[in-house]
């Protein structure tokens, strides 16, 4: 069974600080997705990583994918309060001829002034 593990699950950090969060998965995949969810809202796509070594950046967030290590990182630079949200990674798999995404449990980020 595929496992997608996010680490940490909860993070409280100060504004202006940097931090890296991790997404590990247990099966071969070359596609990984990051989503953001604000409280009471739905999921919004942040990054689509489609190959080994892929790196994408948007504002203060940068995501990368290492398919050999089965690891994706989401790096936060100089955090601001607006980044407070829950972040999900999702891994693309093919199972029984079907294609789907399997999600991690999400990491709740709180950025304090």
């Amino acid at each position, binding site marked *: 069974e595929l496992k997608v593990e996010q680490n940490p699950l909860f993070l409280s950090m100060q504004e202006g600080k940097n931090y890296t969060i991790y997404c590990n998965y247990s099966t071969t995949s070359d*596609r990984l*997705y990051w*989503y953001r969810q604000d409280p009471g*809202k*739905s*999921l*919004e*796509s942040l990054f*689509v990583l*489609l190959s080994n070594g892929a790196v994408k950046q948007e504002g203060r967030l940068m995501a990368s994918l290492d398919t050999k290590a089965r690891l994706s990182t989401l790096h936060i630079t100089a955090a601001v309060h607006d980044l407070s949200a829950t972040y*999900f990674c*999702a891994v*693309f798999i093919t199972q029984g001829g*079907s*294609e*789907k*995404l*399997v*999600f*991690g*449990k*999400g990491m709740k980020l709180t950025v304090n002034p």
Partner: protein
Amino acid sequence: DVKVTQSSRYLVKRTGEKVFLECVQDMDHENMFWYRQDPGLGLRLIYFSYDVKMKEKGDIPEGYSVSREKKERFSLILESASTNQTSMYLCASSLDLSYGYTFGSGTRLTVV
């Protein structure tokens, strides 16, 4: 932008009722998905569909069924609602998984 619309933001239903959750997308996507989201458990796939009249079970299909009579609409049915089906339900669609999913705004269902 693709729009995925879930007909209700909040629903309260009684135990034993048959419940329909509707999802409509406006971009001719072939792939549609239903997830439920619970604290500490993340998103779990209930059912998905790659085409009209086609459906496949996800990881937790028990107690649910789906209907896809038209390409744009994917309905989740709780045959006899139970309190353990109280959850946030998220619908998603995708043209091609290379682009990931577009999610609807979610339906928070409470079964009393």
